[in-house]
């Protein structure tokens, strides 16, 4: 709530650019890939300005975006298995097991982060199924990465986001939260851990056979952490909602709301009361949860609802073109929110997005990227689409797992 007031305050002055925005740009300055997807070895030295990757389908543009997305917590923008990121052999298809030699992969980066320059390394070590993370050379956890940089991405798969199950919308919302609240990732995963443990207990021993005290201890953990998760999501939707309602140039205004039992409890009363009510509902639902698995109530069931403001229409009823525009409008609203609140915008990874927008919206998107001063990574097949960015971006041609810088006038 305090943050929202601050936003209103600074928002009134225009761009909200009251602090020293330059110098706070979050950017990848050097990216090194080793045996990652189709790259054997790649080193890229970058400016903090937008990055444009142009090349035919299958050249490895999205792989680069995926590598950058792995500098933040989670499974990256493809949500792939860690072993699937091993380098694909040149000679044929993967044998389906664990990559060619099972030798693992690595993504290392030097990043201008929220807290200054940092070296991040992540990858899969040979024989391991887990992703390992190093920060400034010291072993760390993927969750710790959110203390350094955030990234928000839009991929062609997300064009279906308003039609798919609520899970993909929750993940999208959570990613927006990670960018401002590094602890959110930890809360979500510990909530899910407590839920899995309770589900296992109910499955193994049944609602009557399981130790009641143990169950209520797990339910207390779920309630405490689940209410914190719901509160963070409510807070983000409130803050984002204020900015998204204003629209973004030619992008439609959006009404965002979160729908869920726990969120409703939180809106109506204090957090402690919500925790108590959540715990009671979990205890009452044990028999049902033992049969169905999971939990019948909780923040893992909430949904992010989006409406097209001008058309007064739910997002899933809008045309596919309008849905894409709504999604971009939310991403841009989030960037504007963060720019006003903290003067730093997360990395934007926009895979094949520009080509799918009409010309007015594309121009507005490019303008916004330049205005935010964020390192946006854009991919596309057609060079001419990105012509308006020629002066402000660094462009590379991607072909055959290698990159070639496209000088301002001397493109190949």
């Amino acid at each position, binding site marked *: 709530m305090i943050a929202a007031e601050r936003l209103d305050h600074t928002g009134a002055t225009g761009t909200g650019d009251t602090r020293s925005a330059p110098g706070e740009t979050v950017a990848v300055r050097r990216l090194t890939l080793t045996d990652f997807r189709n790259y054997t070895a790649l080193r890229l030295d970058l400016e903090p300005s937008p990055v444009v990757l142009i090349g035919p389908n299958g050249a490895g543009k999205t792989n680069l975006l995926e590598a950058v997305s792995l500098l933040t917590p989670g499974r990256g923008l493809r949500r792939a298995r860690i072993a699937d990121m091993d380098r694909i052999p040149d000679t044929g298809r993967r044998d389906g097991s664990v990559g060619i030699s099972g030798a693992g992969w690595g993504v290392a980066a030097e990043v201008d982060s929220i807290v200054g320059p940092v070296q991040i390394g992540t990858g899969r070590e040979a024989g391991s199924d887990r992703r390992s993370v190093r920060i400034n050379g010291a072993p760390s956890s993927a969750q710790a990465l959110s*203390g350094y940089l955030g990234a928000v991405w839009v991929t062609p798969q997300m064009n279906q986001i308003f039609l798919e199950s609520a899970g993909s919308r929750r993940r999208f919302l959570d990613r927006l939260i990670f960018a401002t*609240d*590094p*602890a959110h990732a*930890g*809360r979500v995963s*510990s909530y899910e*851990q*407590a839920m*899995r*443990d*309770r589900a*296992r*207990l109910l499955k*193994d021993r049944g609602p009557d056979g399981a*130790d009641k*005290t*143990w169950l*209520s*201890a*797990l339910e*207390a*953990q779920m309630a405490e*952490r689940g209410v914190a998760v719901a509160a963070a999501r409510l807070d983000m939707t409130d803050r984002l909602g204020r900015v998204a309602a204003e629209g973004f140039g030619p992008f439609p205004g959006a009404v965002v709301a979160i729908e869920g039992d726990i969120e409703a409890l939180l809106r109506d009363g204090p957090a402690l009361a919500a925790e108590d009510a959540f715990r009671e509902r979990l205890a009452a639902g044990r028999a049902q949860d033992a049969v169905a698995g999971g939990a019948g109530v909780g923040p893992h069931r909430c949904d992010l609802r989006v409406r097209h403001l001008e058309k007064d229409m739910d997002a899933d009823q809008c045309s596919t073109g309008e849905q894409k525009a709504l999604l971009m409008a939310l991403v841009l609203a989030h960037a504007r929110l963060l720019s006003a609140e903290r003067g730093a915008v997360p990395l934007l990874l926009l895979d094949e997005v520009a080509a799918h927008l009409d010309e007015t919206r594309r121009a507005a998107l490019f303008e916004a990227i330049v205005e935010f001063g964020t390192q946006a990574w854009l991919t596309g097949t057609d060079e001419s689409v990105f012509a308006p960015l020629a002066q402000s971006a660094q462009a590379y041609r991607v072909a055959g797992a290698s990159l070639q810088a496209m000088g301002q006038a001397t493109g190949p």
Partner: protein
Amino acid sequence: MNEIERVIQLLSRLPGLGPRSARRAALHMINRRESLMQPLAQALKDAGEAIKICGTCGNLDTADPCGVCSNPARDGTILCVVEQVADLWALERTASFKGRYHVLGGVLSAIDGVGPEDLNISALVERCSGEVKEVILATNLTVEGQTTAHYIIERLEPTGVAVTRLAHGVPVGGELDYLDDGTLSAALQARRALG
């Protein structure tokens, strides 16, 4: 497998050692057979025979009850509950706790198949029916550690002992600017009146 390979294989099972460091450690010992290897073997043999698990608190010692439980200078009315012996040792290193301990031997985890009956919890409840007045819960701040703490609180309720837990907050020598949000808000909630 010859004797040297067997030593290397056993050493490589130690935490923190892989095959390479196990080979280095083995070579190092072989080069110092009389000054290091044989005394170490003897020490391991002696310890292997002498170490007992304390029947009262679960600590490791050469005597049962252990040195902490049998020390009359320690306050038997305060019990500190820890997950592992390593945690007990960590608290002992501070030399600031004068009560006694209770080692659980793990944490509740349905996924790993660890239930209350696998932990040293019934014995804790039993101990609390005696002279114990306060139980300090010093489990880790993980989901499992906190679930276990919750479980113990409920199990101890009928005994009427006071239950406390370690404070969460600003580390000694820490700077607020560098703390994560979760730690800072925990520290705010757990603030204390001065004077």
